[in-house]
């Protein structure tokens, strides 16, 4: 076991350090590919081994706790150095508020912070480990192909790829460690490593915009860091331990819920929930592999992981109720904002925020089935969202734009990438694919909560709009059969795209298997009953059932029917497009306003720019979200 864990956690970190020091491209590619294979393999072995709890031996004569403590201090001081060098007072204060209390607490208060089983894996950790080890590493491979192009596009010389790869390698190692640790102090350390990594990665290009976004990410996540430190200290004094399993088992009540609420606050910042969502929107200035990492398997998933992990400890409390409303609010608000966007990456970012909101909401509904739905959504969202980000990155390199309006008819210009994007969109958008299935499950369990169910019903209708029109744009083709271009893509980009798209479909087909083998044990360990089972291609809950095979069968029949109809049809028609007489007129009246006739008719999606403007809406959304967070803390005191 020790060996597999070594590969899952330390191998990426060691490879990262080597890659940083030795700037040889061939060696780097070799190391990245080798780490990919080994890390994937290790996660399968760990999964095969099943649940475990492990105490770490001492390294030489120094206990591991001590090492983490020293590294933690070093990390804090490094962040402090960064914040001083960019002269950001708020950031300095936030960093000091983390470093000093933690240092005093660990070294002068005589607190006994020993955790008996420092590495602990239940099915939730195993699921996270698999997601991180497969999705994250596939993004490494993609980065090999992408970063080469990217540096040529942006004319970066000398190459800074060694720095980039070092960080994304360490990032994955830290994420794996985060989900396998059982001590709040350890989790905090790796939490901060991911924060620092994302700061360095977002600022990687060194442009003004990149620097600004990076600082914003660090700032907002530092708020979470402060909350986390406060949680560690209050947890020790209120509950008497920093052992996560013991915290959950203690079923805290009243004021003892404070550390849990603080940890949830930290998770909100990490998962970019409104009002902390700005950093994730800014993060899209970074090279695509970074966005893909942040949005799918790492970083934001750490936040929702923490909430799902802690959910049994405040199951059924008033605090859980408020948080589920908060998550539902983020779900609907972010979906609404996504409607107003034409920037592909921004749509994806808002969609991530909204999906994370739904995961948080589901994890806090007082029904174990909803927790299962939260885990399910986390898995499916990770795969499809990673895929979509990688697609948008590839498209951007291909057509020089990430605006979905420019992707009209992309299926003719970039047939391969467009097809893969369609797979990504369909798996995000439609049943019987996993994301929608999870939403179905959340809706059925949320139905008892009238406020929540309204938000989720409206949010899912909004989601359909912004993904459907994107899908339609990609698939536009005129009857003229314009030359369908052949696409040249590097094997490093092709492999992850194909693997992820196949995976996105496969895991949806195998959903009952995944449900029974992984998700059900992850939930039943903490909740006595779970009214949910996968049987014969049907997901059966207490209130309803979803049969997958009829839907897959109908889709397959439609494909076969469409294929034969196309084969025997008499030809292609011209679209209906009159308007020859338009040039006889000088002006045209649209919505009561006179306008000159445009040279060429321009068609765009509805974006409702006047109503759904980011600048106008965001302050209000933030206000509501802050009020809800205040309620979260308020209900503890009541």
């Amino acid at each position, binding site marked *: 076991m020790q060996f597999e864990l070594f590969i899952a956690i330390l191998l990426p970190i060691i490879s990262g350090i080597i890659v940083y020091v030795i700037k040889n491209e061939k060696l780097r590619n070799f190391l990245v590919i080798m780490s990919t294979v080994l890390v994937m393999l290790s996660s399968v072995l760990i999964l095969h081994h099943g649940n475990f709890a492990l105490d770490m031996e001492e390294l030489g004569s120094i206990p591991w706790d001590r090492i983490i403590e020293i590294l933690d201090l070093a990390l804090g001081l490094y962040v402090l150095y960064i914040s001083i060098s960019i002269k950001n007072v708020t950031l300095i204060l936030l960093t000091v508020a983390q470093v000093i209390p933690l240092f005093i607490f660990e070294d002068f208060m005589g607190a006994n912070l020993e955790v008996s089983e420092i590495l602990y894996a239940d099915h939730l950790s195993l699921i996270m480990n698999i997601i991180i080890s497969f999705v994250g590493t596939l993004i490494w491979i993609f980065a090999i192909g992408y970063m080469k192009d990217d540096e040529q596009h942006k004319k970066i010389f000398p190459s800074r790829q060694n720095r980039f790869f070092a960080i994304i390698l360490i990032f994955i190692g830290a994420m794996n460690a985060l989900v396998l640790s059982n001590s709040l102090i350890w989790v905090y350390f790796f939490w901060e490593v991911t924060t620092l990594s994302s700061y360095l990665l977002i600022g990687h290009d060194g442009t003004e915009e990149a620097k600004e976004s990076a600082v914003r990410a660090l700032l907002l996540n530092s708020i979470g860091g402060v909350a986390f430190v406060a949680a560690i200290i209050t947890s020790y004094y209120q509950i008497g331990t920093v052992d996560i399993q013991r915290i959950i088992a203690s079923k805290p009540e009243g004021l003892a819920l404070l550390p849990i609420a603080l940890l949830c606050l930290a998770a909100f910042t990490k998962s970019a929930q409104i009002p902390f969502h700005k950093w994730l929107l800014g993060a899209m200035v970074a090279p695509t592999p970074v966005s893909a990492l942040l949005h799918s398997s790492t970083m934001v998933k750490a936040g929702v992981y923490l909430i799902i992990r802690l959910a049994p400890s405040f199951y059924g409390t008033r605090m859980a109720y408020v948080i589920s409303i908060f998550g539902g609010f983020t779900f609907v608000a972010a979906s609404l904002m996504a409607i107003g966007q034409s920037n592909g990456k921004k749509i994806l970012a808002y969609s991530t925020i909204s999906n994370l909101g739904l995961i948080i909401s589901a994890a806090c509904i007082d029904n174990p089935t909803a927790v299962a739905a939260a885990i399910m959504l986390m898995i499916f969202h990770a795969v499809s969202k990673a895929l979509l980000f990688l697609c948008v990155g590839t498209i951007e390199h291909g057509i020089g734009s990430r605006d979905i309006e420019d992707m*009209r*008819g992309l299926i003719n210009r970039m047939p391969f990438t467009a097809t893969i994007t369609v797979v990504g969109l369909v798996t995000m*958008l*439609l*049943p019987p694919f996993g994301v*929608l299935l999870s939403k*179905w499950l959340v*809706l*059925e369990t949320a*139905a*008892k909560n*009238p406020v929540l*169910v*309204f938000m989720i*019903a*409206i949010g*899912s*209708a*909004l989601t*359909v*709009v912004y993904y*459907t*029109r994107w*899908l*339609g*744009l990609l*698939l*536009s*083709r*005129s*009857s003229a059969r314009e030359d369908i271009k052949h696409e040249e893509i590097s094997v490093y980009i092709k492999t992850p795209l194909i693997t992820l798209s196949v995976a996105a479909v496969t895991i949806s087909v195998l959903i009952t298997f995944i449900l029974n083998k992984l998700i059900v044990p992850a939930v039943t360990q903490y909740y006595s009953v779970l009214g949910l089972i996968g049987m014969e291609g049907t997901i059966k809950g207490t*209130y*309803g*059932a*979803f*049969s997958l095979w*009829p*839907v897959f069968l*109908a*889709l397959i*029949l*439609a*494909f076969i*029917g*469409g294929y034969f*109809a*196309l084969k*025997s*049809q*008499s*030809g*292609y*028609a011209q*679209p*209906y*497009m009159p*308007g020859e007489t338009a040039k006889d007129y000088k002006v045209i009246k649209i919505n009561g306003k006179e306008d000159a006739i445009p040279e060429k*008719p321009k*068609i765009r999606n*509805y974006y409702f720019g006047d109503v759904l403007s980011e600048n106008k809406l965001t302050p209000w959304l933030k206000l509501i979200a802050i009020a809800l967070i205040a309620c979260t803390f308020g209900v503890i005191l009541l």
Partner: protein
Amino acid sequence: MILKILFALIGMPVIGGLVVGADRKVTARLQGRYGPPLLQPFYDVIKLFLKERMSVNEFQVLSVFIYLASSALSVLLLVLRSDLLMIIFVMSIGAAFLVVGAMSVRSPYSQVGAQRELMQMLSYEPLLILITVGMYLVTGSFKVSKIMMRTTPMIAELPLLFLVMIIIMGIKMRKSPFDISASEHAHQEIVRGVLTDYSGPYLAMTEIAHWYDLTLLLGIAALFFYPYTVWGVVSALGLVLIEILIDNVTARLTVKWMLSYSYMVGVLLAAVNIGILYFIR
């Protein structure tokens, strides 16, 4: 079982076609015309099937097939008494692909129609979900089989949600004032919105899919009155009659009006009904 499947796949669209035929007849009489025969929708579809089969591109064809398949499946699932929420999700696959098919054509008419159809979907989908939620709150299950074990009709507890059905039916049938993406009857329209570039047999297939959707909604409306099946059927047909009346006394309005109307009035009615249910229990 086989009889049920046959009824769902063949009987239900025939009912849908007849309803559309009756609709055209009644509408004509309201407008002082004689109107087409009751079976005119079937003649139309048969005629369309005999036309030359042409499409603008392959995605349009695929979309039509998916639309028809998922609409048929949703009706089948209703007849087989499965999960209501699942049924609505399955129906939404088809609705989404009708839009995708229209968007795949680079004609401004299809494109604008597709955008408007998306807004139609945005207007009725949450309402439809809320109706299933209301039914769940009354019966404790989303499964039609469980809902049909009731001995008293749900309408007594969900009167406002039944009113919401009027809005949903109006939007889904594309009746005035909600005939924004296209109008139910071709009326006097020269260009027919989201359906502009579907032609021949493919247009016929969208028509049949529409019949399926119509019967699905009528079926859900009838559920409100179960176990009084006759009353259910009568009320569902009554809904159609109300739609026809509204259609003939109102004019097409704008997308924004539709959105705000369905969200203000529709969601409010649902909220009041669900709120009362929640506090009574």
